[in-house]
């Protein structure tokens, strides 16, 4: 298998050299291949950027897969991916995960998050303290926070999910999330979170804001601030994070070209906005 590896390394090197040379002439003759792995929340963005980028540069081969955020920087460290998508800055420690040394985090998008409830819940606003009490299991009934007399059902993402890490850090200020009880369940993906909160009465969960639009669930205001793009841009709504592309050292060659494309004003203000992410340039 060694010869295969060295062959592919040689091919990669050749590709990078040729792109280095040719990019001076015309961008469309860019060629090479990129493997992207990591966060599933950033996957729709990556896939859209990939298809646009490949239209401009037909010779570039991009394959993407996703598992969880931490897979991104890990795949980059192992050398099986050039870009690792991650919902947090993996060059720093976050609860449960150590920093990845020698990697560069390049922000590519702003991801807003929101606490969401089933449409039969009458509550529209919760304070940070109420959220903390609900998710730590202290408050078990909606009537304690001004709603009807109904049990609260907590829908969680798995420990280590980027959405959960960010929600816990920014909305619960690092507070704990209850893990057992007859009214607690954990789901695997954003889509499942949406389906569960939509169909379970009295359910509360958390989700990237992109999935809330056009759904049957309701996004809650936190401390009286509604989760809208305007409130994030003017700094009132705090529950958001950057989405990052992790690379081994500074990105070079095709990888750099791809990251440059996804950060370009054309993509940020076009497709990225349509996918309900917020452009980097909007945050001061």
């Amino acid at each position, binding site marked *: 298998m060694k010869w295969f590896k060295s062959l592919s390394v040689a091919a990669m090197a050749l590709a990078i050299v040729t792109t280095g040379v040719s990019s001076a002439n015309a961008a469309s003759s860019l060629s090479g291949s990129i493997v992207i792995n990591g966060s599933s929340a950033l996957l729709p963005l990556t896939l859209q950027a990939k298809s646009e980028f490949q239209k401009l540069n037909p010779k570039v081969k991009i394959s993407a897969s996703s598992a*969880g955020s931490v897979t991104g920087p890990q795949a980059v460290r192992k050398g099986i991916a050039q870009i690792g998508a991650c919902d947090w800055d993996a060059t720093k420690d976050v609860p449960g995960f150590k920093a990845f040394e020698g990697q560069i985090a390049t922000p590519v998008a702003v991801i807003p998050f929101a606490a969401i409830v089933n449409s039969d819940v009458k509550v529209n606003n919760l304070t940070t303290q109420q959220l903390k009490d609900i998710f730590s299991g202290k408050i078990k009934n909606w009537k304690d926070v001004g709603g009807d007399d109904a049990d609260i059902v907590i829908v969680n993402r*798995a420990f*280590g999910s980027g959405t959960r890490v960010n929600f816990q850090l920014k909305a619960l200020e690092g507070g704990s999330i209850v893990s*057992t*009880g*007859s009214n607690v369940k*954990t789901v*695997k993906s954003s889509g499942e979170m949406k*389906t569960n909160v939509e*169909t379970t009465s009295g359910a509360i969960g958390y989700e990237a804001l992109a999935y809330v639009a056009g759904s049957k669930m309701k996004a809650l205001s936190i401390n009286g601030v509604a989760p809208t793009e305007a409130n994030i841009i003017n700094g009132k709504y705090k529950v958001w994070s950057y989405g990052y592309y992790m690379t081994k050292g500074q990105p070079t060659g095709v990888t750099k070209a791809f990251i440059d494309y996804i950060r370009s004003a054309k993509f940020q203000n076009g497709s990225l906005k349509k996918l309900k992410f917020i452009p980097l340039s909007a945050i001061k």
Partner: protein
Amino acid sequence: MIESSPAVQAAVQGQLGESMKSGSGKAFDRKNRLLFYNSTFKVVCICSAIFVCLILFSILIFMFRTGVLTFKTVPLTTFLFSTDWSPETETYGAFVFIFGTFALTALTLLFSVPLSVFVAVFLAEMAPKWLRNLLRPILDLLVGIPSVVYGFLGLTLLLPKLRDWAQVDLSDGILAGAIVLSIMILPTISRISDDSISAVPQKYRDASYALGATRFHTIVRVVLPSARSGILYAVILGMARAIGETMAIVMVIGNTPQLANALFKPTSVLTSNIVMQIPNVPFDSTWNYALYMMGFLLLFISLLMIVVIRLLQRKGASR
């Protein structure tokens, strides 16, 4: 196994030689050629079997090698018998998942085996031919439906129904899991049983009827016992799929690490816990090793169940 006794084989080859010798000179080439093909084929078969075993054992070793690292930090007894699983605080007790796997599999087999055998008997013995030719492909079809579709239907149809029926906050748990799994493995068990019931020679039935037995007696006392090995194999295969199923189960089991001591209580099994957590795990952590160990444990449990079923069968046969 008549053909495997060497004496018979020698006799057969001797006969073969005789018949060849009586032919013309050309037949000698033919005999050599046939023997050459014969032995080549045998070598090819042995090589394939070795290849298959090689892959299987390398997967075993792959899982075990990573999994065994768990025990550097977690004692075996804690891993097997503690009910406390929280990666946040680095405690890894897998008892909840082991118990959940056993409970879920048992409940699933309880639902699906009797029903599948009924369906198999129906297909092989009772249904008119046109119905049989129509139903068999439809049953096979169910195997090809991706498990995410089953899971999604379970999530959007079954869970709300169960919730209303049982008047609980969350209906996720082993009952919902067992219902979804039963539907998933029913075609596997019934189709393979159906094949083995159909393979029972017609003369057994004829003999039984000739002795004056009714259809009930013929099926229960003659046909089913004759097809027992195949039915058992079908059950094992169905059980294997039930133990190993992930994508559908993860949507209806609730994924809460607590003991499944009630039908409607969100819980977790080995597979669902692996598939939930492995995307988010740092790959050189005890957490990761523990998940691989659970994968290995899963294999161990299914091997154990297979051995138990085989032993039961042997006991039944010698009775």
